[in-house]
């Protein structure tokens, strides 16, 4: 309560707050409707979708889609496991690589800053493409059918490096680093004990992006994984989408089309898989969020 009055002059007015809230409520609704829609379809009866199309209020409800997945579901549980492992390991490795690299190029006094900056910038523009990447990951590094093929290629991205670098620039006063140096602390020590703790918001953001990136990745699985036991959950979903796309290219070649559709789950099942891929990651979200929304209270700095 004590801080309340003190903070008051730093806050927006009650009226503005209400206006902001109304605006954000509308925005939030616009954002979640499609997801709710997906959830509703996943609980709809398949035949009513065929005859009537999508609807927010289906004629008949059904849990068939989820039952179907549970029945054929040992794969799905397994894929969850793979996704989880890849996401956790990848996020940690990625954070370590990005946090260090970005720190180095954020130091204004570091003489090789420009070299390392340009080194990170070029990959943002140029990529080896399908063949180049496959050549290195599958052939040179021999990571085919290995979990590292899902982890390593996504560990860093120039974009994250530069975003984190600019976070460092805003949140770390050069004076602190200088004084640590004068105190005789090693660079690594300064980085670990001073830089990391005050960059939590930035690290949480990059951590969140990495987590999302790993969770949503399917491309590496598509290219490098033949072993069915190593397939992440997202690829299960995308594979279905790719097959539908393939089907759309076939035109009137019904012979092949019926071969493709034979293994294609129904629309409600597809939507149920969407729900099942999004739900876990949505649950993890608040864990990261507390670092960049929770810390917003201005009074917090006064403790």
């Amino acid at each position, binding site marked *: 309560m004590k801080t309340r009055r003190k903070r008051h002059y730093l806050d927006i007015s009650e009226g503005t707050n209400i206006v902001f809230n109304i605006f954000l409520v509308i925005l939030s609704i616009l954002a979640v409707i499609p997801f709710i829609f997906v959830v509703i379809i996943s609980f709809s009866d398949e035949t009513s979708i065929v005859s009537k199309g999508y609807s927010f209020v289906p004629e008949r409800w059904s849990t068939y889609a989820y039952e179907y997945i549970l029945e054929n579901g040992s794969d799905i549980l397994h894929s969850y496991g793979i996704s989880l492992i890849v996401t956790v390991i990848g996020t940690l490795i990625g954070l370590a*690589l990005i946090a260090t690299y970005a720190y180095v190029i954020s130091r204004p006094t570091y003489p090789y800053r420009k070299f390392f900056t340009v080194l990170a910038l070029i990959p943002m523009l140029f990529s080896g493409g*399908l063949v180049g990447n496959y050549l290195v990951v599958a052939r040179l590094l021999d990571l085919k059918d290995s979990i590292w093929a899902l982890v390593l290629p996504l560990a860093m991205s120039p974009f994250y490096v530069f975003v984190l670098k600019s976070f460092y620039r805003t949140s770390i006063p050069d004076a602190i680093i200088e004084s640590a140096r004068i105190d005789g602390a090693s660079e690594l020590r300064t980085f670990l004990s001073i830089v990391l703790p005050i960059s939590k918001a930035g690290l949480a953001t990059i951590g969140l992006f990495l987590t999302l990136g790993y969770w949503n990745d399917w491309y590496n699985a598509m290219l490098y994984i033949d072993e069915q036991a190593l397939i992440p959950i997202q690829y299960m979903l995308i*594979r279905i989408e790719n*097959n539908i796309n393939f089907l759309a290219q076939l035109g009137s070649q019904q*012979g092949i089309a019926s071969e493709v559709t034979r293994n294609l789950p129904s629309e409600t099942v597809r939507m149920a898989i969407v729900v099942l891929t999004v739900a876990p990651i949505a649950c993890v979200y608040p864990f990261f969020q507390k670092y960049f929304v929770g810390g917003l209270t201005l009074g917090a700095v006064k403790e």
Partner: protein
Amino acid sequence: MGKKILSLILVALLCVSLFAGCGNTEKSDDAQKDEQKEVATEDKDNSSADDEEAVELIYYTIGTPPADLEMVTEELSEMTMEKINAKVNLKFIDWGDYGSKITAIINSGEEYDLAFAAGPDQGDYLGNSKKGAFEPLDDLLEEYGQGILEAVNPGFWEGVKIDGKIYGIPTNKEIATPQWWMYPKELVDKYDIDIDSIKTLEDLEPWLEKLSKEEPEWQLMELDQESHFHPGYEYIIDDSVPAVASLNDDSLKVKNLYEEESTIEILNTLRKYYKAGYINQDAAIKPPAGLVEGEKVFWAQAQGGPYSDIIWSKNRGYTIVASQVEDAYVTTESTRGSIVCVSSNSKHKEKAVEFLNLVNTDADIRNTLGYGVEGVHYEVVDGKAKFLDASSNYDVPNYSLGNRLIMYPTVEDPDDLWEEYERFNEDSVESPMLGFTPDLDPIKNEIAAITNVTKEFRPALMTGSVDVEENLEKFNEKLKEAGLDKVIETLQSQLDDWKANK
């Protein structure tokens, strides 16, 4: 406290990632060495031919990977070990991913022995053959593949030749894929419709008129983005490039499909039907999705062969009757729908061909490949395959894996299934262009542009969704701009040369 732990973790990870990096490079070096060693020993083995070591053939094919793949490849390898002293490592790549993944594998020079190939997004038989990715097989077939040469219909061999050479083994199945029009038996019986008398869109009109009044819950005609009509003409490159030649005469004159009288007539008819409400309103933006179960559709078209109506009925969930609306022509397209190729990088080309020889001639091996392990996935009842419960764990496409005609028919198939196939293939007529493969290199850029123009205009025109006169004129204008004339000219001169040397 938490900070310390966090920093410890970070440091640990740094080390791990560093070592992991080094470890990997070392590992790959070793692997490469091993590979080289292997190569060396193998070369030796080949030279001392008689006492050869068993090889493992890596075989990429299209389709959703089945759960029991390992079990089946083991069974299969046992059989092939006995016969040709080789194992097979069969790898399925899912439909929608096959194109990208096989492109990466082929172009990065990865070693494999066999791969499925068809159109550009399914292994690109034409492009990859020309690029040198697939081995020309004529000599190898002569030596190791006599059985295949005999088993596969000669029309296929004519069709898969590129510049006179065979780059892959076509699947022996229906050799032509003419258009069929399909109708629900229920309505055909109820109104006593003589479907065999309906050969053109105009023939449909009285029925459409009648049914639109009496059967309002049926969608009368179902068309989609990829629907198109070209009776009597064959596309020389792809349906996205409207350079066609007539199938009915030997003139081999290349024309623009959209300047032909018959096409304009078709477009006008479609427009009339669309306006009358016979065609689904969303046709121009409807992606083809196969035959959706339970959808009530009076008329739909499909390419097919003998007894295709059985499959269509299964897809629809109600009985379908179908009639073939054009003659069955053996075309380059119809013969290149499913080919198995040998990699030019393969170390075991002879074995690969021997293996293909088995697949195409040995019924046991072919049945195992297509249906799974006997007694587990299927059983044989009166010479027909009856699927067991576990068959859903090995559900693979059959058109892509080799000679269909030596397989057991399934219990749902009619007794004379393969006789009917033989008869159908026998009766099919060779297209005057069969065996001609255009050289696309000089017209690649034009094809790119034309493809995009076709995708822009054709769906709307071929579903009657837009006014014909105005849009057709625009379409043709843009086709010309994109270089259709050059394409036609080039194809014409290539065709003339080919004909002269035939």
